[in-house]
Each structure stands twice: as structure tokens, then as C-alpha cells.
């Protein structure tokens, strides 16, 4: 169970936010979504883990408190985006989900 890694990533992302006012809500929501995404990825191995279940409930509460939607950017936070290939944060522009490393194609035609 890697819930502690999720916790530390979230706290690292939000450290310095002493008072999370409304002006910070979009970025905080982005961090929360990334936190939720992280917990879902580790859900299978964390069943029954108290820290995991506390985190899941805590995220839900914070989502409500800060009026965060569950959809939206996952990785872009304070101008940084998680590059999955390198597992490092790099700069990103707004309204771009991520910096994409590889593309796939799907097609449908004919009878």
C-alpha cells in the first residue's frame, strides 16, 4: 500500500498554502484531484488500511469544503505538470491536461 506516497505528494503540492482562500481554490482542487487519482491507483493494495480510508474520506470532505468538481485537470498544478515518463514535474500552460509523450490511433470504417 503506497498511501503514504500519495499523502506526501499532496502535502508537498499544497505546502505553503497556510490559508486556502477562495482565490486558491482552483489550484487546490487540482491538487485534490491528483490526490484522489493517486489513492484510486493504490486502492487495491490498500483495502483495510486505516491511513488509506482516512485519506479517501478526507479528500471527499475537502472536495465539498472547497467546492471542487471531480472532473478537470489532474496533473497541472501551479504551472507544473507531472511528466509520467520521467516522473518529474515540468512546466505546463493552462488549459492543457498534460504534456503528452506518446499518441495512439483508432479508426472505424466500412461495413
Amino acid at each position, binding site marked *: 500500500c503506497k498511501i503514504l506516497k500519495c499523502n506526501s505528494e499532496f502535502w508537498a503540492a499544497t505546502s505553503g498554502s497556510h490559508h486556502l482562500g477562495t482565490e486558491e481554490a482552483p489550484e487546490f482542487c487540482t491538487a485534490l484531484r491528483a490526490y484522489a487519482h493517486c489513492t484510486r491507483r493504490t486502492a487495491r493494495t490498500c483495502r483495510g488500511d486505516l491511513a488509506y480510508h482516512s485519506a479517501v474520506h478526507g479528500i471527499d470532505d475537502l472536495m465539498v469544503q472547497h467546492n471542487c468538481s471531480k472532473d478537470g485537470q489532474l496533473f497541472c498544478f501551479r504551472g507544473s505538470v507531472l511528466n509520467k515518463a520521467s516522473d518529474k514535474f515540468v512546466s505546463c500552460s493552462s488549459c492543457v491536461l498534460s504534456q503528452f509523450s506518446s499518441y495512439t490511433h*483508432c479508426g472505424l470504417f466500412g*461495413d
Partner: protein
Amino acid sequence: PHFRTFTDTFQTCKVQGAWPLIDNNYLNVQVTNTPVLPGSAATATSKLTIIFKSFQECVDQKVYQAEMDELPAAFADGSKNGGDKHGANSLKITEKVSGQHIEIQAKYIGTTIVVRQVGRYLTFAVRMPEEVVNAVEDRDSQGLYLCLRGCPLNQQIDFQTIRSAQGTEGRARRKGPSLPAPPEAFTYETATAKCREKLPVEDLYFQSCVFDLLTTGDVNFMLAAYYAFEDVKMLHSNKDKLHLYERTRDIVAGNT
């Protein structure tokens, strides 16, 4: 229809009725396929619905819908972009050929979609980042969708078998009740000659073209295969993998 999946597997499927093509956190695409001839197992796409889910402060939820003889160059609400937010232009529709060819750019998710109407039926092609393909809430419970997993076994058609049978018979007719005689009878030789006009490489697009001419007699399907390959050339990231020659072999024995 013929499918080329995200993993470059190639299948020909029945999938009559409504089926999901793509379903992730950002995008949902669904198609409806109808028999090309009464009672035929071979179907083609008659309706396509694309839902771009709202994306934070960037784009509103937008729905694009195309049907036979109606290929709009706008979303269902009449708009051509992602709404009124500051990132609205990261989603937009471009009309390439009126009523025949549109392109949707969703820059915020690095995605390009091409929809065409060729003859009476629709074609679909997408270029999508793997990060978006894999952006699902819970992959373990992820439902079946065709671009990712291909068709279920019981929906796959083994068109090589049909081709062999037709080659032996030398006529564009299948025995049995599932496929009635097409309106214009191509022989295997005339179908291959026709397809070679637009598709000189005898890959799976060429073979699909031959299959379609044999099963329907509708030469528009030759153009559908041609444009499908044109879209692959534009959208596929690996230029060494444009042509496919080997079909996915996971066919249920006796399925056809």
C-alpha cells in the same frame, strides 16, 4: 465495420446497434451500426455521438452528433468551440468538406478526431495521447469499449474465410441466409481490380475494401477504405506502422 484499435489490431465486426468506441474521463464516443442490407450480418456506421466532458475552467461540456446524410460542422448546441471560458478555443470544429468531412481539435487533451461521411455511412478516426486513453477512474472496472479492447469474440467476422469462399465460387455471393445477394455482383477479381485503383498496397485496408465490395456491391466503400487510410497517414504517430497485413486471429471457430 472495420476497426483499427489503439493497439493496431485490426478487426471486422458485426456490432449491430449502439456500441461505445471510447470512454474515459474526458471523452465519450458512441456509434450506432446498422445492417448494410436487410438481414445482413455486415453493418456500417449510421450514427456517431461524441461527448467532450467539461474541463475545469477551460471548456464546457460539448456534444457532437452526426448521422447518415447529416454531418454538421458544429456541436449540438450550434457552437463551434468549447464555450465561453478562457480556454474555449482549445476545443474547436473545422469543416473540411461541407457535409462530408469535419475535424475536431481538442488541444487541451491533445486529441484530434476526423469524421467523414462516405456514401451513406460514417467513418471515424482519432489521434489521442496514451495519457488520455488511460485516464479512467478505475481501470479494473473499465467497461468494454471498442477502440481499446476491440470487438468481443462473438462479434468478430473472419473476412479471410469469406474471401476464400468467394474466391472459390468466383462470385460475390455467400451461401446461407445471413448475407443476401448484393445489389451489384462483384467477383473477387473485379473487386480486387476496383480496390487496387485507390489502394495499391495489398494491406488490410485493401482487403477490407474487397470484402465490402463483395458483401455490398457499393463502390462507396472503396472510398471509405481509401479515406480511412488517408486518416491513418495523417493521425498515426508511427509512420512505419501505417500498413497492416496480419489480422488479429482471435476469431471464434465457426463464427461466420
